[in-house]
């Protein structure tokens, strides 16, 4: 649905994006992750047709961004980093205006506005001037604006920046609800957001691609084993041997009150492990995945230069 090939953008001598190639599948939510000034906004601006690339190709919804700019713009909804609002307009008249410039046919305009208002929960402020609504509502309005023409692809540049925790949760829920119906690409440097919302990520640093793929794929490529942490009601040396006997287990380690169990990717030893516990009258207090957490993954990719 979104595809780039060797995409490069230079501002004079400064290279903002260099040979960036990635692919986002239809109906998925994909994160564009990277530190500040990594080239996230530039990449999004190229995809939306706001900026032309210096070299390379990009296509959105099957249209070439450079050759078929108008078709691309028609199939994209875009929320820039600075939410583009006209303070002197009301919420309703603003959405009506956006519907018109996004070429929503006249008779369907009202319906499109109502739909966007409903999805983003703006009905309580519809008739208010934009300058008088809160930051959270402004952000929602920015998303409503991106949705208005029911685009196939939605591109959101830092959609939760500057919001309070409750608003962040709401906006994330909203974005998650787009899954399946729209293909979403959102940029962020908040790792928890990626983990919660996204199916996969493109990680860039200094304009270069560091890694891309689904979160599971990335975790697999950076650690050899799958595994779990287990906390039981008792830990003694006998327990260690108990798990070691399980077929397929590669590593058993006791770390404080927790036991770390690992096995190669592709197998699933969770059920046999639980069975062993039950058979031996061990009470499971806690059990969680050992797969590399996203912070760890991100730091290794961005700082370690582990290019794929």
């Amino acid at each position, binding site marked *: 649905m979104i595809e780039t090939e060797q995409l490069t953008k230079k*501002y*004079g001598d400064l290279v903002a994006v260099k040979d960036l190639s990635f692919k986002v599948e239809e109906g998925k939510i994909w994160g564009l992750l990277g530190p500040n000034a990594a080239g996230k906004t530039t990449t999004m*601006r190229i995809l*939306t*047709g*706001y*900026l*032309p690339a210096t070299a390379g190709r990009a296509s959105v919804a099957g249209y070439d961004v450079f050759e078929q700019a*108008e*078709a691309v*713009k*028609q199939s*994209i909804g*875009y929320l*820039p*980093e*600075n*939410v*583009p*609002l*006209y*303070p*002197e*307009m009301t919420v309703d*008249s603003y959405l009506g*205006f*956006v519907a*018109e*410039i*996004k*070429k929503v046919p*006249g008779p369907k305009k009202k319906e499109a506005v109502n739909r966007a208002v409903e999805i983003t929960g703006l009905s309580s402020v519809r008739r208010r001037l934009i300058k008088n609504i809160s930051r959270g509502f402004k952000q929602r309005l920015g998303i409503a*604006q991106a949705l208005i023409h029911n685009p196939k692809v939605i591109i959101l540049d830092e959609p939760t920046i500057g919001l309070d925790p409750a608003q962040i949760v709401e906006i994330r829920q909203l974005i998650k609800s787009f899954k399946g119906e729209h293909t979403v690409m959102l940029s962020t440097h908040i790792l928890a957001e990626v983990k919660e919302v996204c199916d996969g990520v493109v990680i860039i640093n200094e304009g270069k691609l560091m890694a891309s793929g689904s979160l599971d794929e990335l975790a697999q490529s950076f650690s050899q084993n799958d595994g779990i942490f287990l906390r039981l009601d008792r830990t003694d040396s006998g327990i260690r041997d108990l798990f070691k006997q399980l077929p397929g287990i590669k590593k058993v380690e006791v770390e404080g009150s927790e036991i770390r169990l690992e096995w190669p990717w592709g197998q699933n030893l969770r059920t046999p492990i639980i069975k062993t516990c039950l058979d031996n009258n061990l009470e499971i207090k806690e059990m969680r995945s050992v797969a590399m957490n996203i912070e760890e993954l991100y730091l290794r990719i961005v700082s370690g230069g582990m290019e794929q």
Partner: protein
Amino acid sequence: MKALWSITKKELLSYFTSPIAYVVIAVFTLLSGFFFYSLISWFNMVAIQILQNPYYYQQVNINQMVFAPLFNNLSIVLLLMLPVISMRLFSEEKKMGTEELLLTSPISVTQIILGKYLASLIVLLAMLVLSAIPTILTFIYGNPEPLPYFLGYLGLFLLGAAFLGLGVFWSALTENQIVSAVLTFGTLLLFWVLSWAAYSAQGLWQDVLSYLSFFEHFDNMTRGVLDTSDLSYYLSFAFFGLFLTHSVIQFRRWR
């Protein structure tokens, strides 16, 4: 075409929800009324004195004595006030970040520019129509020649359209509205004083300079002469301003 009109409506809404349009229209109408009142009072006084001498009777002409100087005065007022109308057109979009919304929408840059320009022309039209209300009364109480009168207003409109074309261009170059207004105002003044330079220039230069000056062309129209070269001068001036605006917006993105 529909998208163009959407842009125009949006711009008109911004003009009339902020005080800008009201203030500009009110001040322009006030000044116009004042000039008209002074000129018509003076005309009355002179007319009464002159009418006692039949020899001068033919020379009492309201078009030349009232409307020609009125239009000249108004042309200067337009020069001072129209930069305020054009200054926000693109500067504000850039400052607010809304330019990104417009340029990522499936409408062309030409439509955006024309939509905005059209809105500024409508404000100009409102200024001229409202200021013309008192002057139209002279047709009830006197008998001015209609042609120079209407050509005078057409001239003011064309002159204003050229001013706005240049203003849109400067507005596209900066995100600061004051800078945009000052640059527009400065350039307009320069084009005005070109006619002064024309007086002292020689040969071809004199022709070129006086052709370029706004007001040489305007004088013809207030005298009731519609020359295609004057018309094409204003229209090409406005077109050139809009063309440069288009180039500036495209160039900034391709840089």
